[in-house]
């Protein structure tokens, strides 16, 4: 009587499974050991999403793209530019309140002679992204004139991005205003208001994260 060979049938499947498992584990281990993926998001440790649009620098509207100002090869200890990004609305009360504080902070961090001690090859740039929280609502006016007037009123010297179409707000998923981010020269977020511990402000984070002292 001819008997079906069950042992060989099972053996063929497990031999195949063994080969495939070894192949899969080898490939996966190699990938895990040689790469360190960082995902794009707005949490601390994430890569900042793209941020682009027209920026008012006090004289003209110019195109700006955060990615063009990122040095992906940067590592801690290198020189570079840190970005303090504020998502704000020129009509929002909390943003108006914080505008004066930013005026005080800008001389500490930005310009040719910041009062905060920093290595010579480290710079800090502020960027305000003006979004539209309540477009069409009476009393909430939007437009480039609103942005330029706001900047002049608070004597801000840094750039203001026009995001009244909310493209960047949607890309970043901004929950409210003002929302602050500190972005390292390699594009990694070091501080984000939604992630921040209670009481830890952007200015505290900048003091902690941005190096002090002479040339690095």
């Amino acid at each position, binding site marked *: 009587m001819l008997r079906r060979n069950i042992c060989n049938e099972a*053996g063929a499947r497990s*031999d*195949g499974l063994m080969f*495939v498992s070894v192949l899969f584990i080898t*490939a996966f281990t190699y990938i895990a050991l040689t*790469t360190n993926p960082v995902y794009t998001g707005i949490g601390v440790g994430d890569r900042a999403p793209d941020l682009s649009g027209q920026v008012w620098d006090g004289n003209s509207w110019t195109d700006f793209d955060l990615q063009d100002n990122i040095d992906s090869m940067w590592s801690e200890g290198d020189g570079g530019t840190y970005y303090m990004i504020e998502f704000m609305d020129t009509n929002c009360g909390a943003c108006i309140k914080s505008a004066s504080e930013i005026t005080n902070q800008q001389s500490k961090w930005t310009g040719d002679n910041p009062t905060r001690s920093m290595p010579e090859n480290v710079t800090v740039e502020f960027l305000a992204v003006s979004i539209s929280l309540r477009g069409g609502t009476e009393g909430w006016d939007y437009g480039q004139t609103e942005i330029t007037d706001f900047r002049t009123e608070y004597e801000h010297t840094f750039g203001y991005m026009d995001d009244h179409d909310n493209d960047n707000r949607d890309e970043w998923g901004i929950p409210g205003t003002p929302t602050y981010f500190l972005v390292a020269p390699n594009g990694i977020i070091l501080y984000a208001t939604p992630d921040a511990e209670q009481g830890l402000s952007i200015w505290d984070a900048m003091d902690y994260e941005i190096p002090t002292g002479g040339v690095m």
Partner: protein
Amino acid sequence: MELDANTQLMFHWIPIVFGLFLMSPLGEGLGKQLSSRWESLDTVRGRTLGGMIAVMFGGFTVSAHTLWIHNKASEMGGGQFCSADGVWDCSSVIGNSDWNTMPFIGLPWGLLGMMAFALFLWLAISIAKEPSATWVSSNLSIGRNFGILGILMIFYLIYAEYEIGKLCQYCTTAHVSHVASTIGFFRLSKMYGGSDWSNSSVITAETESKERRKRGGYVAPKNSSEEE
């Protein structure tokens, strides 16, 4: 010396081209030459399975490479991990965060490719090792169905490339492997139950016993009389 991305891609094409050649009618001569080492390559079924395994292996390695590029692009923020040469620009496709993961699930396409080719390899290797097993028919059916599902995904990825305006040479290599593997499963299904399959089985069963005896391995009894 660092090889550019297109040269690295050639290494994935080597098993794929070899497999495609073996699967085609042109591969008969090659199969006969190699049959002294792998006897099953003397048969159409053996050549088809051997070719499929080579093609799937190439598909697996290129998918793993795609996942590596995906992770590296995420680590370094884009970058030039793939060559950008006109319309063939894998950086723009694999590094594109809008399209480089599966919708809803969020798995990188490279990882999905690795899983798909691992499954295909398992199905094909199992059949190659035991072509007369009871589960061969279901293995072939799983291979066919996953093959068709994969082809639908390939159409989606071609649409993504169209939207991005660039073609990814690594992805295309994986697509070619997938389509060839699917065709292989259909060819095997057509053969299954026919003379091509059973003749090969007889040859394989006989030669397998001989080879095992040569190696001193255990030969499972086929008849009840052999057992006694």
